[in-house]
């Protein structure tokens, strides 16, 4: 009964979103206030019914209703409760419902936090999102209804959730990633609404900025969580593999990064308008591409859902209509936007343009490398794959170039910065970062590596340039504290995010260049040395979990004659599905991770295993946290709130004058 209610809620949400996708936009066009005012209630309705639908699915999981096909495929009576609940997004149908529900959540927040915007603009934004969510719900009902029943004979027990997914990473990563992905739909809708209304001004950019920043911050966290999860769950010791399914979030993230910088220029200087709109469309397209790639079955990867051609075609349809339609609208409307062009080559505008070009080129080359095998196969019928070397060859040098400008950008000024000023500012910064880059590896790591030196120079370049900029800004103030207080939240957001880049860069570089790994076969009591650590296999034994059985080995790690830690890597066999799974043992640290993955038992208690020492690997995700925090901070800047208050005052005063006018004749 409950699953049928879920299905019914989906149908109601479809009907409401059909209204939402048509009435408010038409209302805004024909100036019909009643239709315009329908936008918010309809949005709330779509949200409520999608919420009911996803609750119904969660209920089916919690109550072990295996007559629902999706539940039977992804759950089991033995599955721990937290995974029963989160198995909602353990497969294609449910995760798409989550995706759609996330969009409804974003739409609801647009409805709630848009009091400062003109009603007809909000109506257009919500209307565009309504069309989008209509397409999603239709897709769900037509090809992948999570509430489909198995009739007439439901299985007695479910096939269990994929063992690789039974992990905290699975609870956190998909919802966060989806939330970030879907957030770019909001920015996209703002851009389309602006194109529809012809209103492309600084106010539009100011409205879009907090949304773009938050979506970008959430996406950053989502990608970082995925990287962290892959690092400790998949057990190959890496944190980024250029997997075809990792790439679309990365593409979206790069477009999104370009977008939040371009929005800054549009807001502050009224320039790059059409470029900003195009970036909003591209970032959104990147998110749709991600859906298409994971759900069409075109690619082989750890993420790939089932291949079902009808789904692939349907998503391709959504992709074609939304991207094609928005680009067509862009082509028709963009020439009407007049942008000024008053800036010099050493201005902040120009450096931000360079930032945008580099980011877009990186995104495009990743896009090419991701789609090339598919296109190649379609044309020649031969299967090929593009490996990490391609992506590293392109991406790493481009990022290095970008980081040079990350240092210069904040110190430059709008319109014009004189060469001598820039040189004076950056001279000391360059000197200090050269010093750090050359000396630090020698002292701390007692090793010299050209690549590590370059990355350290770049990281200190970014940090010192930011430091110089802050000290410039504070210098004129009476006290340092007062100066620091006078800086805006969005400035601090930028500072944090840029320092995050430096932190991530240090982590990525030191892990890549100084990691050590060794695959060995150890008998009980045997030791092996890796770096300055001595790993000893103490023994192994059987273990039993709620829904798995397995083996666990015990290793002691000794450093400088002192016992550092005891590690317990496991190999599990999930009973219901019969899938084996390896559980890494990690000793995480601020400066290094020790990491053991268990292979197989080779008689007499001897185990094959791989040992890793990974210096600074945590800094990669720490950097991402800095960036995300920076993005959120910037979105909370006073200037967005102040406008809201001002707008509220305006409307309040408006009604007061009206009352006065009414009173006078009487």
């Amino acid at each position, binding site marked *: 009964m409950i699953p049928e209610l879920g299905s019914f809620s989906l149908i109601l949400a479809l009907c409401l979103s059909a209204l939402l996708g048509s009435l408010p936009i038409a209302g805004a066009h024909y100036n019909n206030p009643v239709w315009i005012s329908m936008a918010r209630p309809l949005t709330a309705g779509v949200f409520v019914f999608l919420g009911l639908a996803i609750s119904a699915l969660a209920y089916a999981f919690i109550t072990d209703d295996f007559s629902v096909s999706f539940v039977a495929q992804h759950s089991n009576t033995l599955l721990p409760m937290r995974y029963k609940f989160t198995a909602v997004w353990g497969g294609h149908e449910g995760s798409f419902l989550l995706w759609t529900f996330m969009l409804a959540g974003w739409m609801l927040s647009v409805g709630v936090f848009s009091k400062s915007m003109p009603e007809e603009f909000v109506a257009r934004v919500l209307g565009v999102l309504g069309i989008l969510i209509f397409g999603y719900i239709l897709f769900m009902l037509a090809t992948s209804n999570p509430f489909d029943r198995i009739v007439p004979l439901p299985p007695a027990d479910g096939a269990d959730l994929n063992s690789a997914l039974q992990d905290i990473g699975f609870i956190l990563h998909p919802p966060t990633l989806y939330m970030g992905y879907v957030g770019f739909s909001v920015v996209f809708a703002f851009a389309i609404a602006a194109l529809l209304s012809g209103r492309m001004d600084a106010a539009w950019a100011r409205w879009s900025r907090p949304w773009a920043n938050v979506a970008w911050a959430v996406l950053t966290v989502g990608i970082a969580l995925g990287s962290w999860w892959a690092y400790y769950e998949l057990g190959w010791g890496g944190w980024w593999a250029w997997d075809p399914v990792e790439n679309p979030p990365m593409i979206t993230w790069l477009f999104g990064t370009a977008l939040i910088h371009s929005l800054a220029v549009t807001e502050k200087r009224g320039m790059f308008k059409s470029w900003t709109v195009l970036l909003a469309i591209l970032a959104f397209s990147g998110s749709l591409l991600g859906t298409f790639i994971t759900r069409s079955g075109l690619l082989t990867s750890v993420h790939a859902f089932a291949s079902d051609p009808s789904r692939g075609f349907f998503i391709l349809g959504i992709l074609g209509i939304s991207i094609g339609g928005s680009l067509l609208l862009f082509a028709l409307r963009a020439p009407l936007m007049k942008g000024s062009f008053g800036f010099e080559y050493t201005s902040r505008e120009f450096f931000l343009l360079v930032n945008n070009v580099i980011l877009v080129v990186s995104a495009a080359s990743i896009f090419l490398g991701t789609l*090339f095998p598919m296109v190649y196969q379609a044309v020649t019928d031969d299967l090929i794959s593009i*490996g990490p070397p391609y992506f590293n060859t392109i991406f790493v040098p481009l990022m290095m170039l970008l980081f040079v400008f990350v240092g210069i950008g904040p110190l430059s000024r709008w319109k014009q910065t004189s060469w001598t000023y820039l040189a004076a500012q950056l001279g000391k910064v360059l000197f200090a970062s050269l010093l750090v880059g050359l000396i630090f590896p020698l002292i701390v790591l007692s090793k010299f590596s050209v690549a590590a030196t370059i990355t350290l120079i770049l990281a200190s370049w970014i940090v010192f340039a930011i430091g110089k900029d802050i000290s410039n800004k504070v210098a004129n103030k009476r006290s340092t504290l007062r100066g620091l207080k006078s800086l805006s939240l969005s400035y601090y957001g930028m500072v944090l995010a840029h320092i995050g880049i430096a932190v991530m860069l240090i982590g990525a570089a030191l892990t890549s260049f100084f990691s050590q790994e060794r695959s060995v076969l150890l008998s009980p009591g045997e030791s092996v040395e890796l770096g300055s650590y001595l790993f000893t296999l103490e023994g192994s034994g059987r273990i039993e979990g709620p829904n798995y059985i397995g083996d666990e080995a015990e290793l002691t790690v000794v450093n400088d004659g002192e016992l550092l830690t005891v590690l317990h890597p496991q190999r599990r066999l999930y009973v219901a599905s019969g899938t084996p799974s390896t559980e890494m043992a990690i000793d995480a640290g601020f400066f290094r991770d020790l990491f053991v993955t268990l292979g197989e038992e080779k008689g007499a208690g001897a185990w094959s295993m791989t040992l890793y020492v990974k210096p600074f690997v945590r800094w990669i995700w720490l950097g991402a946290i800095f960036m995300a925090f920076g993005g959120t901070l910037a979105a909370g800047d006073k200037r967005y709130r102040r406008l809201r208050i001002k707008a509220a005052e305006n409307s309040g005063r408006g009604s007061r004058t009206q009352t006065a006018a009414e009173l006078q004749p009487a």
Partner: protein
Amino acid sequence: MKAHRRKRLSVILFVAAGLSVAVGLTLYALSQNIDLFYTPTQVAQGEVNAGQRIRIGGMVREGSVQSAADSLAVRFVATDYANDVPIYHEGILPDLFREGQGIVVEGSLDNAGVFQASRVLAKHDENYMSPEVKAALDAVGTAPEGAATRPGT
């Protein structure tokens, strides 16, 4: 030409130049890093040169896995049930590696005709067959019963 037009033009030229350099480099990197995919039958027919980096997809032949007792070395046979390729790999095999299971190996053929695999890939879901392996089996028409791709995660 007016000053601001000249500036706009030079910015456009700058962007275009940057883009074309990037496209050139990208295509070069692309051409250097393509791993072609072969089926065991294609390998048996001598389509692959020794030393060329390729991927092979197939099933692990039942009873073919021999792992050394004192090291991580393992030998097995990848098959599409028409032709076989002997595979040598040193390292830990993925969780779902087992006989009769579809796998993809990356590496190159040595002069003795043994495929030296640098990486062995298997799927997480045991009923799932990767499109590449399925393509390999379809190519020789020997896909075993019930091995069609199935909804997985």
